[in-house]
């Protein structure tokens, strides 16, 4: 890390273009896994090779520019060919490239090490949140950016982890091999955590594999790196790595919470509590497309406020939220929102922004629509 910084500082000093204000963050992070350290070393090796080649090549160039200028009385020579020299300067770069390819191949093979993993996590990209399924554990998380809109708009001071904070980070144990399966529910996303040197595209209909083993507990932040539409810049990835015991405790707690959540389905819900809950769900899940006031962004994202056709047809409204619309940006939420959340958000949409249907959708009815 320090070597990298010194180097970056040197470079910045050479280019003389901007002041050095941060002690970190000029270079690729070394990271917290063996693979990320290997990648960092590789990056620095190639970088230094480029620096050396650059110094030699530009050295000769600038020497020629100063030494052989007409104003200094230079007279042009006649030569224009030299086979030996040409063969040499073709062969040397080739050998340098072979030398670069050898460690690169070794690192790449380590990245593709498919040996048995301790935990499997399925990562699904959605517009614009991440879903994490701990396979075989019955725990599912949805990870939304938690930076308040006011900070983005500039009406509130920006926090330390502006745009890089989420409500539910991916929690992983340290010193365990994790197999990450990546896929997408809509467009292509890419899941990237620089400190783990893992970047894998999440492609609809396909499952990609990558692996990691985190060495140190900590919170590691990254972002979606494949343009995925409007809020591509607002779907951060946060990984919280902890010791095994803590992780076990966390997992047990999550399982309990999931069970408790399922319990809420059976009882009768009132309008007030559904609207209250629905408003929160709407803000995290729906507002990015249908906008805060339900006005939408036509024609791609239709308005919900004053959408009479929708308000007249409760079944259609529920169908669209539960099952999505084929060939459009409207996703199916049957697998991503709980029955209570779906009931709440539909109730909210039907009783907000001047929509005054008075409809109350019961979670139990939704449950019946998505039961296996």
């Amino acid at each position, binding site marked *: 890390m320090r070597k990298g910084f010194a180097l970056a500082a040197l470079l910045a000093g050479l280019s003389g273009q901007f002041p050095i204000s941060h002690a970190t963050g000029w270079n690729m992070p070394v990271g917290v896994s063996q693979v990320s350290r290997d990648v960092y070393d590789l990056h620095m090796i190639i970088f230094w090779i480029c620096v050396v080649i650059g110094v030699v090549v530009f050295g000769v160039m600038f020497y020629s520019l100063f030494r052989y200028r007409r104003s200094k009385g230079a007279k042009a020579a006649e030569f224009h*060919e030299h*086979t030996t020299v*040409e*063969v040499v300067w*073709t062969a040397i770069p080739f050998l340098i490239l072979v030398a670069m390819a050898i460690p690169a*191949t070794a690192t790449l*093979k380590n990245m593709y090490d498919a040996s048995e993993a301790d935990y499997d996590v399925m990562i699904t990209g959605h517009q614009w949140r991440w879903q994490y399924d701990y396979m075989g554990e019955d725990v599912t998380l949805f990870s939304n950016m938690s930076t308040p809109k006011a900070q983005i708009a500039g009406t509130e001071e920006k926090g330390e982890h502006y745009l890089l904070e989420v409500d539910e980070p991916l929690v992983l144990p340290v010193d365990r091999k994790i197999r990450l399966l990546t896929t997408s529910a809509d467009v292509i996303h890419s899941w990237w955590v620089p400190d783990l040197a893992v970047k894998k595209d999440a492609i609809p209909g396909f499952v990609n594999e990558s692996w990691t083993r985190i060495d140190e507990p900590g919170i590691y932040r990254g972002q979606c790196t494949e343009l995925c539409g409007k809020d591509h810049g607002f779907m951060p990835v946060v990984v919280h790595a902890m010791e095994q015991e803590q992780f076990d405790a966390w997992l047990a707690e999550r399982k309990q919470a999931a069970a408790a959540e399922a319990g809420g389905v059976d009882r009768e819900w009132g309008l007030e509590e559904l609207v209250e809950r629905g408003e929160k769900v709407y803000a995290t899940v729906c507002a990015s497309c249908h906008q805060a006031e339900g006005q939408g962004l036509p024609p791609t994202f239709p308005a919900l406020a004053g959408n009479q056709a929708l308000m007249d047809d409760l079944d259609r409204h529920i169908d669209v939220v539960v099952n999505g619309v084929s060939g459009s940006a409207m996703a199916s939420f049957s697998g991503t929102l709980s029955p209570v959340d779906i009931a709440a958000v539909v109730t909210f949409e039907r009783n907000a922004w001047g929509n005054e249907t008075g409809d109350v959708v019961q979670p139990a009815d939704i449950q019946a629509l998505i039961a296996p």
Partner: protein
Amino acid sequence: MWDVIKSVLAAFFGVQQDQRRRKDFEQGKPGAFILIGILLAFLLVVIVFAVALMAAG
């Protein structure tokens, strides 16, 4: 034939003597050069792929 292959290889390598080059352009048939060029490009693909297979091995 061998001369053509040598010239195309030189082209792949990017180095050729002026004298040889003149000879090629004056005497050689373009078709032969293009054909050999495509074949050698294909050979290059095969070789690099074999190296990659071996390295992945």
